[in-house]
């Protein structure tokens, strides 16, 4: 038996009939077709399914889709304008912040929430900020490097003169 879910996903207002037991991650992947949000552990530990809910990083496997009613959701697909890359995406690429890439969308979304609050995080703050995300191949060193590089790029971007 469906109930109506009204939600904005990556800037697009949607209205869908969903079953109460549908998890937000499955709504995003199967109903919206946004498969950049991954199901990793399925036990709310790994953070691969992290998305932004009204700006806060949350695990989309640990929420009912209906609980997002009225909210704005950003997934990895909506982080940068079509065809472009967000500074975090560029930094993960340039710093080799991934090997298999499965955990990457979750890390980038969690890092986006961290950098929105803290424009210049220390190594320790990056570690604490990303403690809800697991990577089984890189060992985190390059992930930390990537987040630092993105923070720097975003600070420089913000400081650049308009049209400069």
């Amino acid at each position, binding site marked *: 038996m469906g109930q109506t879910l009204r939600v904005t996903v990556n800037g697009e207002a949607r209205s869908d009939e969903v079953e109460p037991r549908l998890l937000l991650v499955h709504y995003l992947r199967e109903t919206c077709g946004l498969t950049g949000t991954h199901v990793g552990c399925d036990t709310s530990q790994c953070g691969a399914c*992290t998305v932004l809910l009204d700006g806060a990083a949350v695990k989309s496997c640990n929420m009912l889709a209906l609980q997002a009613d009225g909210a704005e959701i950003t997934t990895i697909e909506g982080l940068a304008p079509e065809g472009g890359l967000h500074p975090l995406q560029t930094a993960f690429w340039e710093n080799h912040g991934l090997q298999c890439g499965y955990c990457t969308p979750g890390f980038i979304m969690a890092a986006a929430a961290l950098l929105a609050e803290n424009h210049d995080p220390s190594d320790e703050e990056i570690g604490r900020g990303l403690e809800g995300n697991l990577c089984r191949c890189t060992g985190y060193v390059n992930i930390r490097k990537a987040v630092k590089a993105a923070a720097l790029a975003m600070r420089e971007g913000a400081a650049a003169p308009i049209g400069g």
Partner: protein
Amino acid sequence: MIPAAFQYSKAGSVKEAVAQLREAGPEAKVIAGGQSLIPLLRLRLSQPSHLVDVNGVRELDYVHPEGDLLRVGAMTRHSTLVRSELVQRHLPLLAEMAAQVGDPQIRARGTLGGVFAHADAAGDYPTLAVMLDATIVTDRRRVAARDFFQHLFTTALADDELVCEVVFPMAPGPHRYIKFRRRLYDWAIVGAAVQKLDSGWRVGLTHVGPTAVRAAAVESRLQAGASFTEAAGAAADGLEPPSDARASADYRRHLAQVLTRRALEQAA
């Protein structure tokens, strides 16, 4: 892993939530932040007939100082407690605990009231509530923390009763919570909390039994002038901790003593 089917309704107020619970019957459950409940639904360890969602009950999201008490609304999220200047000023141990709950994503959703209603043996706030003699306020009554927690996942709440507020005494003095765990976002294998009040030390332990424990033997040794090391030696007195995949009962007894000593040393 897909939860079993259930009915779902949203409540906008305490009154509505209680009415919906009453109408839905004894197999209904409240969902607040859902950070413990949804994993249980997915594993089908919990199969409620109906979920009443209280995330829209804004009237329960607050931190109010009142005299020498700090009243915290049940829908206050962990991330709010971490940042709250009122909590940091009047009961910094609560903020310190909140910062150690789960991970940032879980703290963004999980709520204070949810921790009390869920009553996991490894929950952090129940330890603070029991050691400081906090009061749990529901839609119909006030219950002392020591009477509220009855057993594993079992509280004094009736099927249609809602946790609305927890009232803590203010305690701005020396304090520390040490949560021993293998990974940052894990539940405590054992936790030790200490808080200095004008009347002396209060000491609480997490996950050394089915409910949070106040380490009265440690408190009375401190009162009698024992050193931190001597006093902490009594932390395992009378405990019957669980043995599980993470730690044996003996190891938990050992941790209770070591963590209590460290918490006292770090707080003072």
